[in-house]
């Protein structure tokens, strides 16, 4: 019990540290001077893990693997034009490795990828149950 209390103290310190960092070490909303910084929201660890999972699914070249981690509604539509050619899918997977987060929330994330110099966007989402899926590409 004593150990637990001792450890809890570090938990609280960590929490307070983050609070201080986020609230007292950042510029105020009306900071003077121009700022072109665009908020990208968040990219939780679960999302990052799923993005890697999706990348691997494309790299596997398996259409079924991709569709299995895609929202049903979109899968119904995209299964008709998602190619069977593994090379094309792999190319998308390779591009996904270099994804850039445009904006992320606890439920939704939009990424940008580049293939042959052309930019495309795709989105991952989860429905509140923590299970991330491909929303569109």
């Amino acid at each position, binding site marked *: 019990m004593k150990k637990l209390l001792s450890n809890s103290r570090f*938990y609280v310190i960590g929490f307070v540290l983050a*609070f201080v960092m986020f609230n007292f070490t950042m510029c105020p909303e009306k900071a003077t001077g121009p700022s072109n910084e665009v908020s990208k929201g968040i990219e939780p660890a679960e999302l990052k893990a799923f993005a890697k999972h999706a990348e691997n699914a494309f790299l596997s070249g398996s259409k079924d693997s991709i569709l299995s981690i895609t929202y049903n*509604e979109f899968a119904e539509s995209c299964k008709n034009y998602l190619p069977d050619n593994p090379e094309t899918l792999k190319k998308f997977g390779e591009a996904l490795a270099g994804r850039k987060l445009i904006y992320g929330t606890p*439920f939704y994330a939009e990424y940008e990828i580049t293939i042959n110099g*052309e930019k495309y966007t795709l989105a991952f989402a989860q429905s509140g149950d923590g299970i991330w899926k491909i929303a569109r590409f």
Partner: protein
Amino acid sequence: MKTRNIIMLIAGFATYVALHFASISYENTKSHTTFNSEFVKYLEKLMSTKDPFDLGFQLKLTDNLNKLKGQGVSNLGLFESTTGESELNLTPGEWIAHGGMSADEPEVPAAVRHFFDPKGLKDGKKYLSNRGTYWEGFYPNPGIDAIEWALGDTPKGEANKLSAKNGKLYMLQAIQEPDPQKKRQLLAKAWRCFGEVLHNLADMACPPHVRNDSHAAPFGLSWGWAFGSPDPYEELFNPSWIKDYADGQPDPFLLENIQKAKTIREVHEQLALFTNSNFFSGETISGKGYSTIKPLNGEKEYSSPKLENLEYVEEEFTFYKVFPSGRRVKMAKDKGYFNSIFRNRGYPYIDKECVESQASELIPNFMVSAMKDLALFMPPIQVTIKKIDYENGKIAGTVETFKTDEYPNKVSYNGEVIVFIDSKTYKVNCTDGNFEAVSSKSELEKAKKIYAYIDFNGINFYSVQQQSSQYSHLKQFYCNFYASLSGSSSNQKYHFNFDFTSNQIFWDGNKFSHSSKTSSNNSTVEKKIYVEMNPFKKNYVQKINLNEIQIENEFENGYDLNDTIEFHLEISDNNEILWYSEILQWIRISTESDFQKVLKRITLAVVRRVPIYDDKNKVVGVKRETEYYNKIDYTKEWNFLISLTK
């Protein structure tokens, strides 16, 4: 430091970071509170340029002096059993923001009753029916649409304790409640209800909520998948845009309809229809794109918008729509890598750029609708100064509501009223809508302005400002009386004429007095006039005193035979009957009943010196005969001719 301690430190840090960021996008703790609080700021900024006397009110929604104690959500939860409330002490503006958040609590029931399809595309149902086969297996469909829930104006909606209906009820109770503490508690509830109403309004400006497009469930719900995928507009919406786009031009046609609206329901339905008809949600895109596009959510297609009716810019893979506001909005894009056969055009989607573009059109329309909501939700309180009684130094007035469609019953105010006489304040009690402040005649006469207001803990309601009127420009004053003597042997008519022009009138504020004396060989006429106008009711007469003495010079045989006629008239008007026409430059007393109301005293004394003759018809003495008339015979014809009797 031990590894275990480091892990705990990181865990604590990570917990805060997770909590900090789990509050972004169109959900309750961030977007809706931002919508509501930005609306309050927008409103106060707008109102700060307005004269409260023109509006009849002044908003004090963010004034810390107006903190109101009430029950608020302090523990967010998925279900009622896991959601907690405690006492909070917030300003009305903060209660409005709080209502924006609390409307989504508990989150699971809220997730299914915050939908309103104005077109009732699915069997006429306006409530959420999309994906019903999935989630209804876990949670019973309440079958209630978002507007009836928020407004509480249907039997099903009555279940909502924080509806607009209850909010208005709390407002009315607060008006009638004499105890200041209880009044504040009622107002806390009322403003929280209004915050929840605005939450619904913001949902009506969010495409998935008005297009029967079920989307993500609350965070942490294990069967959240049943609600389907999150909507891009709702998820990619950045709350900071609310401030950025609040001042934008609203849709002129929607604005016209909103302005005409007499009920909160009309406002919400109009906004919902606008959003439904002009925007896609993520899964309700339809029309002719690279191919025929059907909604992903498996429901029927809405008749508008349609892809084929939008402007498509190939180089950008973007569908645009030009709105009557003048904005060119990005409605959807269809660039897709796997569709190279169709020149890289895939299934249309809404990305962050589209969301921001659409928000720039939707946010200004939310703002104008919210303003109308407030105008309709605010109790129609009228503070009126009914009477300024100079003689007794009293100011009397009323505070009550007038009837509107939202408030069909009149109620009277109980509580404090502040009466201002120039910079001096009188705090008086208003009971059942009536108040009276006691000052003094001299103070009221000197006062430049008089008004009253009530501090309704968030809104101050003002009376019309009674400004002291200027009369120095009135350069002519004309009074004309004819009096006949009823019952007199002579049946003589007398004419009393008071005609003063510019060089004779010297105003002292609201009054002037003048006397004149003219003599000729035959007569001497002496006139005195005192006029007092109402200082705060322009051109209304307060008091007139007229006095005229006519002496007809006549001597015979050394005897003074002068007849003296003395006329005296006092008029006092507290009922705003006598009005001075600046064009005609006269005061007209139209009816005998009006004259009766204002007449205080009228006398006509005729003193005749009657000669006494001897048998040679020579004056040898004088006999005084006095006739005194102080009544009016109202039975005689009234045509500016006063018939006097004894």
